[in-house]
């Protein structure tokens, strides 16, 4: 593949591995790499922010009834030592129509799952959207559509809440049918929704209007 000439050429021209040469080379290589990365980071910073915000706004729109204005984002903790959830209250003509909650669970089949859940003004789930997950494709990854299929009332979570419905999978004695062959992912999903709801309730009682 490579002829003798090439080989000799490269050997002759190679810089000697003296201490100074080695230090100099490494400093130069890392310095240039850092400069290039700094430039690219600066260049992509804006678009990355925009893409993230867009994904979040899209998610909020899909999980809530129609609204025309988002209120101030609130960061609320679901309990001692747990990561906080983000609340996005939505208004239409100045009236609260629902709250989108960015909730999470750490008990997915592959760990962390992030979900945007919407709760309407009556305190029922109005929709959800899975933002981030690493569940098995074809199994747990089906959670995005499984729990929002109106033709299957036993797996449908919309219009329900953990007070009127037992938000555990039927295998554990609850009212929601788990995804076929993905009980762990389903438990995790319901865990995230329950976390959103209980945080919502806790703050409702201390919050402004109540119900």
């Amino acid at each position: 593949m490579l002829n003798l000439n090439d080989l000799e050429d490269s050997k002759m021209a190679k810089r000697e591995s003296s201490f100074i040469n080695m230090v100099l080379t490494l400093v130069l290589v890392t310095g240039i790499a850092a400069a290039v990365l700094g430039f690219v980071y600066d260049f992509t910073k804006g678009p990355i922010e925009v893409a993230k915000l867009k994904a979040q706004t899209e998610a909020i729109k899909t999980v809530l009834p129609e609204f025309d204005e988002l209120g101030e984002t609130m960061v609320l903790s679901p309990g001692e030592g747990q990561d906080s959830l983000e609340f996005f209250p939505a208004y239409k003509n100045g009236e609260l129509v629902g709250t989108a909650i960015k909730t999470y669970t750490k008990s997915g089949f592959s760990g962390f799952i992030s979900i945007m859940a919407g709760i309407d003004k009556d305190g029922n789930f109005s929709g959800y959207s899975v933002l981030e997950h690493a569940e098995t494709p074809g199994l747990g990854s089906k959670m995005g559509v499984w729990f929002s299929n109106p033709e299957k009332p036993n797996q449908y979570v919309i219009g329900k809440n953990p007070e009127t419905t037992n938000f555990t999978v039927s295998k554990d004695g609850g009212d929601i049918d788990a995804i076929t062959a993905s009980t762990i992912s389903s438990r995790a999903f319901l865990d995230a929704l329950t976390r959103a709801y209980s945080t919502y309730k806790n703050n409702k009682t201390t919050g402004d209007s109540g119900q």
Partner: protein
Amino acid sequence: MNQWKNFSKGFLKENPVFVLLLGMCPTLGVTSSAINGLGMGLATTFVLLMSNIVVSLVKNAIPEKVRIPSFIVIIAAFVTVVQLLMQAFVPALYKSLGLFIPLIVVNCIVLGRAEAFASKNNVGSSAVDGLGIGLGFTFALVLLGSIREILGSGKLFNITIYPENYVTLVFVLAPGAFIVLGYLIALINRMKKN
């Protein structure tokens, strides 16, 4: 050297997945669907092409004893560039591949080509080599991903081919990756024998 031969060797004769058996971690990890395979393959191709070009340009300025760390820094820089660009402009693909992109750094194909080819050849040949090997890798990942997606979820590039009730789930799970890869390698060895 014949550049066409240099380019096409990546597809069959020296295919990184089927023949050299390099980069198995991303290969088995991301190929649960064809689109993931394609995205990962193209990202790796970009890194391979750029790192091969840069390594062949600087090969004579880098002392023998620090060449590996220097190559790794060059490769890692390009991987980070890819990661940032994907995050900014194709967030959907980044979401499904996110975890595997940083792993391109430790993909032995990239360092392997830098060390075995780019550090001994001129820029033109190195670029062709990087492109050929990269596209060969992409071809292998798409092939694996397609087979697994069709058998495991009844779809190809997210288009339903047959109803989900008839799928064989094991193919989208980790064992399915090994099974499909094993059969493909057997098939290719058989083909090469003739």
